[in-house]
């Protein structure tokens, strides 16, 4: 029963809260660009509400029902990511572990592959006549939907791009010498298990491997959210929005909820793993601290986005390799216990 109540509270708190974050993000970017920017609630909260009440448009997809269900599946995956990091779930079948987190994150990443493979937007439909302009260089060549190309990019990002994030995620577990989140919190904040509130005595963030892993985690966070400079799978200049292009009305609202929730949840997990302050609906002080500190990553993200161009795979591959090496270094240091 406690599990159900805490999960419900977590969902009720996290979804509306996550809808404020994009507004903060956009406001910071606008200020950097010497613009006023939109009101804080507009890009997240009002946008979702607006799309929710729009007339439903059936997406054009190979398997329409499957394509539509991916959004709701995505929201559930992200919610469960948050649940697994919550103390009330720490004793359930070992899901609240590195394996649970990585498994769900991989599922989340693979959603973009499915979405891209399914979507068939109007923007890439074949013309009804052969292309005869300039002697038709490519008559008969398979024409790919922009979203399908985005799906191919999503596979590459799954294989290479997100590797640094997983390496960084391993570091706190290596320091705690356990695969369980509860042990990671115990190493940093033993008082959590006995007191109503205690600040972490030994946060991993302030150790050498923890600091290195934080940098890698942050970049991994950007990659997983498909934000600039790693937004190649939704690069506006070619594949536009990628696989989510066909989502409209309620589905678009759902996509925004999923994306904003991921923005918050990954940040909340960072606070849990690297600062030892978990998202616990039964302990209000920890909850508030976790929520406030969770703003660090989105704020840093918005600054990075404002100053970054989109990178192509020419830059993404070396960046991912470099970050993975840095992450591996942090992991080795943490294992050796230096």
């Amino acid at each position: 029963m406690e599990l159900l109540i805490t999960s419900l509270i977590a969902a009720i708190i996290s979804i509306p809260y996550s809808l404020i974050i994009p507004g903060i993000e956009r406001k910071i970017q606008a200020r950097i660009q010497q613009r006023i920017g939109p009101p804080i609630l507009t890009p997240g909260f009002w946008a979702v509400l607006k799309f929710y009440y729009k007339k439903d448009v059936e997406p054009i997809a190979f398997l329409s029902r499957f394509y539509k269900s991916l959004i709701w599946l995505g929201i559930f995956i992200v919610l469960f990511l948050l649940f697994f990091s919550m103390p009330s779930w720490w004793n359930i079948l070992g899901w609240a572990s590195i394996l649970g987190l990585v498994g769900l994150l991989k599922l989340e990443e693979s959603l973009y592959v499915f979405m891209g493979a399914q979507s068939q937007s109007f923007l890439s439909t074949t013309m009804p006549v052969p292309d005869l302009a300039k002697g038709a260089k490519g008559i008969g060549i398979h024409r790919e939907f922009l979203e399908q190309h985005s799906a191919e990019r999503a596979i590459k990002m799954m294989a290479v791009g997100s590797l640094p994030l997983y390496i960084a995620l391993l570091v706190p577990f290596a320091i705690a010498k356990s695969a369980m989140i509860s042990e990671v919190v115990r190493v940093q904040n033993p008082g959590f298990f006995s007191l109503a509130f205690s600040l972490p005595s030994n946060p991993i963030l302030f150790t050498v491997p923890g600091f290195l892993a934080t940098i890698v985690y942050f970049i991994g966070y950007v990659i997983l959210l498909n934000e600039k400079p790693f937004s190649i799978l939704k690069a506006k200049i070619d594949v536009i929005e990628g696989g989510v292009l066909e989502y409209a009305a309620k589905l678009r609202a759902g996509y925004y909820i999923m994306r904003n929730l991921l923005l918050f949840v990954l940040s909340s997990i960072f606070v849990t793993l690297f600062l030892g302050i978990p998202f616990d609906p039964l302990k209000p002080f920890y909850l508030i601290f976790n929520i406030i500190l969770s703003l660090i990553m989105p704020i840093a993200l918005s600054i990075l986005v404002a100053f970054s161009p989109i990178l192509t795979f020419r830059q993404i591959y070396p960046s991912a390799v470099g970050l993975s090496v840095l992450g591996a270094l942090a992991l080795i240091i943490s294992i050796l216990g230096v």
Partner: protein
Amino acid sequence: MMERKVVEKEISIGPVHPALIEPYRIRLFVNDEIVEDCEININMAYRGIERLLEGLPVEKALLITERVCGICSNVHTWNSVRVVEAGLRIEVPDRANYIRVLINEIQRIASHLIFFGHAFEVLGHETFAMRSFLLREVFMDLMAYIGGNRVMPAVPVIGGIRPRADLTDSLKRVISERINDFEKKYREYVERILADSMIMSRLTGVGLLSKEDAIKYHATGPNGRASGWNYDIRTLMHEYEPFDFEVIVLNEGDNKARVVQRALEVFECLKIIRQILKNLPEGPIVNRDWIPGKMNYTISYFEAFRGELMHSCALDSQGLIRGYKIRTPTPTNLAAMERACVGDHITDAILTIASCDPCLTCCTRVEVINFDESKTMTVMDIMKKYGRR
């Protein structure tokens, strides 16, 4: 027989696409992410300006040429005026020529800044794009002060300039103050771009166009000059003779060179503007001593902001326009853009096209596909002849 490259698939971008500021279509033939071939299809927005000009009185017609393009409106007015002035041998006062050059260089800077805005938007760097539009405001205001309109200043008229556009001392002072302030901010802006390693990694070595290719495909204007081809019609124009300026020529031929070339060209424009403000001669601004009459087919070439611009027409005995033809810089640059894309990633290819600063709606002219029957084929005709895909 030409060897056909084996390509995996085609990615077709446009004509309806949020990244395209105009309706055109880019067909990229790719293997994985690498572009093996590129085809740019234009002619999606035909406006019939040449047809519109046919039979109009010459003074009225030349105002319409300004509507060819919103970014380089002045070059079209000025070049159309030059055609008639050359054909009817009309002398233009020096003061008018100076002011024509002034408005042209002001608009050249505004055009280059809009280029930065678009290029950085394509690059995904919103901050630099926004900054560029902010810097451009100075020149939009100056155009409004001089010509009375931010976009269509309509300064040149046959024989000189409109009286409205004559420069007063206070206006000269305002221009001088504004460009001094702009130069300071612009220098910082350019230095920041060049110091940004992420931007440079996207631009350097991408979209290569050799000097040979630039000449072969006739990449005029900044695109040719960024590939080492020293070709600037301003050096041949008598209006530019009094001014000391350098033609910026870079040899790299990549996207970075095309950005840097334009960035440096802006400083040369400022140099010309300063010389105009300093040495503006006194005297009349328009020569009214001419009458419209028969004029043989005359051609005028002009260095527009994007490359070589050609206007040509004839006048009948009543001074009405006959056979007006315009060739904007983009048609000559199109083939070069297609060439420059090859070998790069898809995302880079779009950037390469943007770095060549295309203006496709301006270059769109009527297209007669079936020459034998002298008619334009409809979609139904094409489907009937070639079948449905």
